């Protein structure tokens, strides 16, 4: 009984923290119809600013909170002004991707400034606890509850009784009409970002104090939790976000009590997927339910693709094959091998996100499935790799399609969230299904690649194998795109309503696209596993997914040659310049932002 109360208190406290995040996300979604993936970064910044204030200035808690509030509000306004306002009127997906780029940049800046190692965040609250019915509540619990309830109340008064609050609500309901009635929509957006970010920053500070632990990697999970809470409550619905947060906090807390901490996130993401599929408007979704996607062609930037003559493409392919004969440096070949592996993933993603318009944020999940399939087949069953790698491709194709299938009815932003969650679920299932996957230990001693007894070990041979697979996949994909299949997928992307009205069964074609794309991604993951000889549930994390997406955008959505080019540029060049991981991700973020702003069609143009 006592532990039940403790778990309840814990769930409500965590729920309050989620609420501070989710309310901000809901406000932003309300006025700009955008899921702000940079929200977790602001939360992390809030935690670190608080840490810096306490450590260096020895500020008392109220002052710390005030500093965090103001600083994060300014960060929020800067995000809106620099990152998002210039994108008004561009493709609907652009601001969403921009917030991802911003989060890359902010997270890496935090990491560069404060280092990646976790820090303790002390608090100067008194140490007493109140006993209730066997459980107990501490001062910090009360503070968090107080801040949560207080913020909600203030927000309610602001939205309900102030002129600016009216403007916010008017903009949320109908942006165009508000604009015509003289509402300064930009000022409203700016205000909303300020409020949302300030609350997010406070949330980060409180979390840091609650666990006495902060680290730069906390941002992504925070964004996800905020999104889950919002989807439960109804996207864009402020009271719903609060209820959703408390529910999520309680469910997580009870879930951990029953099954253990490694299940915490699994609950969140399974809940997210279930809600997206069966209750996409959430518990309280009414008016501000997700809007349908716009008409024709607004999803990707229309552009004239750059078409290289066929002989030039063959010449480049020939040059790529001949390269190891001229430059034999293992480092160069290994770097380019990584680029070819990334290219397999990018080809797969450009088909799904670019050609079929089903943006996937969880593509690394496919790599993980392929990698584990081949690794376990070779390690547990002693199957030869020339058999397990194609088998891993097929398994990934089947399993990936099966996992994504329920999400096919979702559109636009929601499918992006769902794929993100599916990717996380794959990783969490790998973590928790110990009897099959060895859980957190990972799989060790994965044998190297071999064909008919001949071990492929030399960098040159691995290079050729991977390049050959990329070329084969690219040729098949190009041929499919010129058939009725490519035409049908692009029709679905451009206007799924019109496509259905002309007899196209969306599920069938999306599934085929995922099945084909899943194969390439699975093969890529499988080869990676044999090259690394060790994999675990974190080898293919969400950062890999987002990197793949950046490659695809860089090359031009749906563009086969572009995907390979994007992979070479983003996987190969930073390595050749020997940049450290932090700077590399910073550069990915900046590249993504610049692309979205100045060349949304990518280098080679969308197809």
């Amino acid at each position, binding site marked *: 009984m006592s532990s039940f109360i403790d778990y309840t208190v814990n769930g409500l406290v965590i729920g309050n923290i989620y609420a501070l995040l989710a309310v901000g996300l809901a406000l932003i979604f309300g006025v700009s119809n955008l899921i702000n993936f940079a929200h977790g970064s602001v939360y992390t910044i809030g935690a670190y600013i608080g840490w810096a204030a306490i450590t260096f200035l020895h500020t008392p808690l109220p002052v710390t909170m005030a500093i965090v509030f103001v600083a994060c509000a300014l960060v929020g306004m800067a995000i809106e002004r620099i990152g998002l306002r210039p994108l008004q009127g561009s493709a609907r997906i652009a601001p969403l991707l921009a917030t991802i780029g911003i989060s890359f940049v902010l997270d890496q800046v935090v990491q560069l400034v404060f280092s990646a190692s976790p820090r303790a965040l002390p608090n100067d609250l008194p140490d007493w606890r109140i006993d209730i019915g066997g459980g107990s509540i501490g001062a910090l619990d009360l503070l968090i509850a107080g801040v949560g309830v207080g913020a909600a109340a203030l927000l309610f008064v602001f939205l309900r009784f102030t002129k600016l609050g009216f403007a916010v609500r008017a903009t949320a309901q109908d942006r165009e009409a508000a604009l015509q009635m003289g509402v300064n929509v930009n000022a409203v957006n700016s205000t909303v970002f300020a409020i949302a970010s300030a609350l997010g920053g406070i949330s980060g500070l409180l979390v840091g104090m609650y666990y006495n632990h902060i680290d730069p990697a906390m941002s992504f999970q925070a964004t996800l939790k905020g999104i889950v809470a919002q989807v439960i409550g109804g996207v864009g619905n402020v009271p719903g976000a609060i209820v959703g947060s408390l529910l999520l906090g309680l469910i997580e807390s009870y879930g951990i009590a029953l099954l253990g901490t490694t299940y915490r996130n699994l609950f969140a993401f399974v809940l997210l997927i279930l809600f997206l599929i069966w209750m996409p408007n959430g518990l309280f979704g009414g008016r501000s339910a997700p809007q349908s996607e716009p008409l*024709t062609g607004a999803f990707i930037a*229309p552009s004239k693709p750059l078409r290289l003559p066929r002989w030039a493409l063959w010449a480049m392919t020939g040059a790529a094959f001949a390269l190891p004969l001229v430059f034999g440096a293992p480092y160069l070949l290994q770097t380019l091998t990584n680029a070819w592996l990334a290219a397999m993933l990018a080809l797969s993603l450009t088909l799904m996100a670019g050609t079929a318009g089903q943006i996937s944020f969880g593509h690394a999940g496919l790599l993980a499935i392929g990698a584990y399939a081949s690794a376990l087949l070779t390690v547990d069953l002693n199957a030869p790799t020339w058999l397990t790698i194609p088998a891993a491709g097929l398994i990934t194709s089947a399993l990936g399609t099966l996992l994504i299938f329920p999400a096919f009815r979702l559109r636009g932003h929601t499918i992006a969230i769902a794929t993100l969650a599916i990717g996380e679920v794959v990783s969490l299932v790998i973590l928790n299904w110990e009897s099959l996957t060895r859980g957190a230990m990972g799989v060790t001693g994965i044998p190297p690649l071999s064909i008919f007894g001949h071990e492929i070990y030399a960098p040159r041979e691995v290079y050729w194998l991977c390049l050959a697979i990329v070329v084969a996949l690219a040729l098949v994909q190009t*041929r499919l795109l010129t058939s009725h*299949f490519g035409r049908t997928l692009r029709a679905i992307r451009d206007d799924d309503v019109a496509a259905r*009205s002309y007899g196209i069964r969306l599920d069938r074609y999306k599934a*085929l696209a995922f099945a084909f794309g899943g194969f390439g991604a699975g093969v890529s993951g499988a080869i990676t596993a044999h090259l690394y000889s060790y994999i675990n549930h974190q080898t293919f994390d969400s950062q890999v997914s987002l990197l793949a997406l950046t490659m695809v955008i860089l090359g031009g959505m749906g563009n086969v040659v572009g995907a390979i080019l994007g992979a070479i540029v983003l996987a190969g060049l930073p390595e050749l310049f020997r940049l450290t991981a932090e700077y590399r991700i910073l550069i990915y973020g900046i590249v993504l932002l610049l692309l979205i702003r100045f060349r949304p069609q990518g280098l080679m143009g969308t197809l």
Partner: protein
Amino acid sequence: MSMLLEIKGLTRRFGGVTAVKDFDLAVAEGELVSLIGPNGAGKTTSFNLISGLDRPDAGTIVFGGQSIGGMAPEAIAALGLARTFQHGRVFGNLSVEDNVLVGAHTRLSAVRPRWPVIGPLGELALALLRPRAVKQEEQALRAETRDILALFGDRLIPRLDHPAYSLSYANRRRVEIARALALKPRILLLDEPTAGMNPTETGEMQALIAALKSSGLTILLIEHKLDMVMALSDRVCVLDNGAKIAEGAPQDVRRDPAVIEAYLGHSGIGQARPQPEPVA
């Protein structure tokens, strides 16, 4: 006379508003029936219900002897119903030719084998390998696409490879109609085909619809330009506030006081009506 499309008691409510109320309509094979009425009368909602994009709250829709009320749009399209959209929904990044070819999707048979279970994978394999039957089917459809586009004179043929987003508004409407014709429909639903067209273009469109009608195609037409409606229609059905207020031959409907009242307030229908400004 056999009825190709029979609608009975069709009703659709949005919240407190009844967009379509107890609507009956029957269209015979080869007939051209026009649906007119003021904005918000429920015309486009009816089209959405018939084509399966929206589900009726009550009523039945029978097309070619089969009940299609509440069926998925892709299934209804496969039965031979094609429609255009009020605001134009072309596939922006597809070429004019590809747009029309998508219209022929339901007719693909060589590349879409009806194999149980593995049918979709077979389709993928056939799209990749392209045996002779598949190639021939594609070539035949491409030839047919050109024939359909030739119906629009030299409006679209020179723009065969242009992406649809680069076309003028009027040309997008034409592409939509071409796409609908590529389905070889048993019935064609046209939602304001001349919206945004100048008088010359409207005249061309009217001639085209007349030609389609005389070729035996059954057409259900939503149109605001009443001269055109009067000239083309076998029958006119007038909707107001979601309910049918009149139905009959064009000349009878135009004299119906209820129609005049609802539709124009007071003045006569089809007379001295100012032409809309030509749209560039």
